[in-house]
């Protein structure tokens, strides 16, 4: 059975997706986890602190227009 999302009315407009979050897949220690909800407290804090590593020679954002 496919998942059915509720249709609600907001200001007279029919909408879907109220109360539905985005799924965020992250690597935990080596495997992927479908949602941060399953992370333990320590790993949640660690994931929150992660910073990106700059690839100076060929920045990802620059080349998108290319």
């Amino acid at each position, binding site marked *: 059975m*496919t*998942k*059915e*999302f509720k*249709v*609600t009315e*907001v200001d007279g*407009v*029919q*909408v*879907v*997706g*109220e*109360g*539905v*979050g*985005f*799924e*965020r*897949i*992250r*690597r*935990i*220690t*080596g*495997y*992927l*986890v*479908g949602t941060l*909800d*399953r*992370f*333990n*407290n*320590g*790993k*949640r*804090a*660690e994931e929150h*602190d*992660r*910073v*990106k*590593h*700059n*690839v*100076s*020679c*060929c*920045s*990802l*954002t620059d*080349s*998108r227009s290319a």
Partner: protein
Amino acid sequence: MIREIIKRDGRRTAFELDKIANAIFKAAQANGGSDYEMATALARQVAANLEAGSDEVVPTVEQIQDMVEKVLVKSGHARTAKKFILYRDERTRVREMNTRLMKVYEDLTFKSSLENNIKRENANIDGDTAMGTMLKYGSEGAKQFYDMFILDPEHARAHREGDIHIHDLDFLTLTTTCCQIDLLRLFQGGFSTGHGFLREPNDIRSYSALACIALQSNQNDQHGGQSVPNFDYSMAPGVAKTFRRAFTNNLTKAVEIYLEQEDGELMSKSIIAQAEKETGRTAAFAGGNGFDEAVLAHLEEHMDEATAQKALRFTRKYAVKETRRATYQAMEALVHNLNTMHSRAGAQVPFTSLNYGTDVSPEGRLVMECLMLATEAGLGNGETSIFPIHIFKVKEGVNYNPGDPNYDLFKLAMRVSAKRMFPNFSFLDAPFNAQYYKPGHPETEATYMGCRTRVIGNAYDPTREIVNGRGNLSFTSINLPRIAIRSHGDIDFFFEDLDRKIDLVIDQLLARFKIQSQKKVRNYPFLMGEGVWLDSEKLDPDDTVGEVLKHGTLTCGFIGLAETLKALIGVHHGESDEAQNLGLEIVKHMRDRMDEATAKYHLNFSLIATPAEGLSGRFVRIDREKYGVIEGVTDRDYYTNSFHVPVYYPISAFEKIRREAPYHALTNGGHISYIELDGDPTQNLEAFETVVRAMKEAGMGYGAINHPIDRDPICGYTGIIGETCPRCGRREGEGVPIEKLQKLGLYRHLNSTTLGYHGDPNEEADRQVNPL
């Protein structure tokens, strides 16, 4: 006069003088005493003191015990008193533990995983399900049992207090960690799962189905993950068999069409048989082995040359097409199965790793291409699959450079990884991996399991330095930052204390190995019973497994090198060369100690860069309680993973690789480095490749690139989602107008199954084709 006493739970019970006498006698016995009369006399004295003239007293158990201590000391039985106090403390600890265990059970029962950290210890176990909770009851109960009755008290205390962490403690007396399964060997002649026998597979679809079953069965015999070291080589025969069958079937059809025969099977089978006999070859997926020509010659006996050529072209075209299709379906099914099939009573899916990349046969190449394409496509609604972990083996001359036979697959691996975070990349040319490599022997290609475990060297049997049928037995990690905090900047003290902890870990690994060794083949119906583990096929069901287990590794791990360096000299190895040198010295020392232990015990001791999922928070929690908040050391909720530069520290990808690579050479039990990329790497595969190549050139063994993969379940968009979904414009938790979804072609009618992403024509039109 004492008639009754008050028990700990508040209930009253009849007073028995013998019970006091017995307790005193036992304490005296522990010191070599044997005078029960004396014990009874002392017990009478205790009772008399408690009564102390009153008519009716009802003492509590604690009051009686206090009085026993007093009487023993006063009457000159100091040593017996000491034993009695020890005994009393021990009983108190056991009692408290029982209470604590019941409290843990209560929380497991009545709290959801959102409130209960224990239920989230491992993110791949769903602690909210019935079976997940049952598993946790077992796990928590087992840990307390071992703590009280099995573990050496010194090891138990070190674990309890957070000096060391005995991983998978709940399985201490039960099994070993993981195994690299040689499917090729397992499939020969078929195998039994312990619940039923399966024939040797004859089609790529059955090859892939049986691969899943093998991984699942073995997962239930061990507490860690399962890995296939040679997935490409293992599946290739399945493709070859599928092609042969498809070739015969299509030749039959060709004969029926071009000769207008009712039933061409007899003729096609006879042609195939003759061609096989003449050439000594069989129909091959890539052709070019002379078989097709032999078939053509026989076809010409029944039809003119032009028609025979047409018939052969037809046969080959559809055989190839059907084989490709079957292989893709088989790989798609495998990915689906490995994300849905249950293991461990339904609490988990099997924790699986597939290594591949070096098989240059057309069949092996097709397997890899299809597996990666199926992974790229995603699951049912385009979701990213969580398992298996893919590890693409990178090797110069095989797939690393343009012109190498599998270079196209290396490129595909990077494209898929840029979208799905898998494959990871292992590097066979790293000197510590290259030393085992023998061309033509895939079993000598270093592979990685699960998060990072590596098993290839073999001091126990140097003629078997291979990956197949081997794995880790158990591992225990050292709390490095704790030692550093206690050193107060004294490096000599640090190394002395580190040595004491290493001694303890070696001792504990050996004690656990002794327990594991006494297990029998019948305890592991698949792992040992089916001969998956190296040399286990030589054993009978009632033989102990100790000798063959020696092919496995006993591994010491560590966590928080960065915090250790911070505590010792105020800087970590990402920010200072001095710290880097000290970091390398520390890790090299640990490795040297493992090599010494290997030589001494003739067992495979190794050093692992501990993955630390549950552990990352546990050590720091205990240390913060003990030593307070120390900046850069205990001020976060986690210790940094093994030798990694801290995740919060800004550093370029290449500098991070340069800093971490030397640790890969030292950690022979396993390692991995991560690079976090910003933005959508599918838009810049060049940058992605630069990072992978930098890892390889720096001499790393194993690396992976992290990037955000978000998904909006409403419109199905997969990519990076910030505040709003780039496809439908929805904000987290808010609704999106149906009209908008309809315009995007994502919604047809109320509760229709078309809700969610089923193909966005605009997006698909933009996709770049990367032909193989």
